[in-house]
């Protein structure tokens, strides 16, 4: 267990000092949020009573979280396969679940500033929520990040090394687009989006913020992604054992 913790700590340190990761998880979403928020002052999302600023707050916080969990894990794992780091770790007493466990723990830490900073900036843009709403919205996005982390691990492990980067980029951009991270989707796009974890993380957090009843079907779909990707990641870990 000491070993898993030690590796987890190192993972966190590596993530937090990676400028590229910090840019895509904090700076970039915050900038997009500020731009979007200024263009929708006083407006509500069509067909709802949710202020557009609140919508974008949640959308961009989750957008940063996707980068921190999906992209960071997929790209790093592909890199570490190439570097022989995973093989080297298999030459230690680290238990077989240790590598993935440390990735998950590190991700949960790494996504935290992405949410907190965006929320803090949100308060300057007229978002007014109760304490329990802030906490619930944080928890939804924070726990929802597990789906992207598991997906990132599965992609990073499962695909040929040169395919990891393009596939990650496609999943990141298309997932965020259909998930409503850039603007509120409707019609066919929304129907497609409703199959994705990007959509449901944002939607459930938006419902919390807007005091709408939470759609439990969405929670189930999100949970399905977490479990499905975790199984996929575990299978891939086994499959790559002799790489």
């Amino acid at each position, binding site marked *: 267990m000491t070993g898993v913790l030690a590796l987890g700590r190192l993972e966190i*340190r590596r993530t937090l000092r*990676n400028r590229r990761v910090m840019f895509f998880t904090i700076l970039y979403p915050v900038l997009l949020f500020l731009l979007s928020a200024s263009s929708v002052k006083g407006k509500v999302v069509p067909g709802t009573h949710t202020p557009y600023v609140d919508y974008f707050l949640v959308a961009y916080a989750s957008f940063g979280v996707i980068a921190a969990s999906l992209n960071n894990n997929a790209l790093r794992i592909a890199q570490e396969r190439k*570097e022989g*780091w995973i*093989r080297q770790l*298999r030459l*230690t*007493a680290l238990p077989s679940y240790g590598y993935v466990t440390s990735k998950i723990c590190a991700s949960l830490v790494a996504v935290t500033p992405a949410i907190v900073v965006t929320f803090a900036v949100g308060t300057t843009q007229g978002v007014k929520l109760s304490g329990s709403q802030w906490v619930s919205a944080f928890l939804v996005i924070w726990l929802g990040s597990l789906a992207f982390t598991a997906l990132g691990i599965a992609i990073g492990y499962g695909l040929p090394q040169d395919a990891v980067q393009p596939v990650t980029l496609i999943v990141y951009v298309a997932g965020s687009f259909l998930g409503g991270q850039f603007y509120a989707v409707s019609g066919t796009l929304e129907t497609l989006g409703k199959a994705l974890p990007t959509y449901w993380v944002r939607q459930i957090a938006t419902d919390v913020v807007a005091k709408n009843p939470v759609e439990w079907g969405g929670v189930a779909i999100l949970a399905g992604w977490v479990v499905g990707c975790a199984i996929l990641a575990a299978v891939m870990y086994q499959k790559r054992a*002799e790489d």
Partner: protein
Amino acid sequence: MSNERLVGGPGVPAVSFEQVSKHYGQVQAVRELTLELPQGRAIAFLGPNGAGKSTSMEILLGLKHASSGRVSVYGKTPRQAMTAGHVGAMLQSGGLPADITVRELLNLMSQLHPKPLPVDEVLRRANIADLADRKAGKLSGGQTQRVRFAVAIAGDSDLIVLDEPTTGMDVENRQIFWNSMKAEAERGKTVLFATHYLEEADQIADQVVVINKGRLLANGSVADIKAMAGFQRIGFRLPGITREQLLNLPHVVSLDVVHDHVRIQTSDSDKTFYALLDQGLRPQEIEITALGLEQAFIAITERDDDGENIGDNAAEVEDAR
């Protein structure tokens, strides 16, 4: 060698291969390898490229599973031995994330080990104290090898496995490295290293294992291996000499006659040479030289290659990594 390091009593070998084979599809990388490596020795694994050295090492480290046969390390499975902290290893390449410092890396490696050593001690033993704060991605080839060695000794393992540790090192770095390796062996550890620098084996190893085409060819002390190849070489010139005239000389291991020049490998140069004179032959330009390990190794593997059936080149494949 201090006996207190012996794990599970002196009778338990550090590594034991029993009838171990490994094939990749049609390619037979290791063939029915049976081998016992005792504790507390420095053992060199010799063999040409593609001989099955890396594959054998990967099997004993638990990175690959044998297709058949059994490998045990201190009487345990390779994975159990690893988990118990018996083994520290350095692979042929890779294993260092570019964005962490040497100290961070060793810190982690020592924390992952059941019997950790203080990082400063590891830095000292591997002779890399000056590199502690460097990023792993910013090291030269030779420095990288020394850091990777430090990774292998970051815990107090009983067996240290090194796959071609000095590849890419300049002469000076290699000498420093050999000193660190010897120091580990002198601590009573079992050091198993694959190499194709014969000088390395000659300087450090108490025991040499020669592998060719996935099979065990020889296993003994450096002197044994030299003896096996024929200890000495006799060379001379004798106009009109034929191969047939020399065939009944005693102790001859191999015989080479090209025009008037003769080269004989022999396990006893005195007796061979006297017999030559007794036949009434009077050779000129006589040279009698002792074989180094390098020539011995080449002699053994060449003999093996000649003895193989033609077309049997299944093992002529780079060690699959």
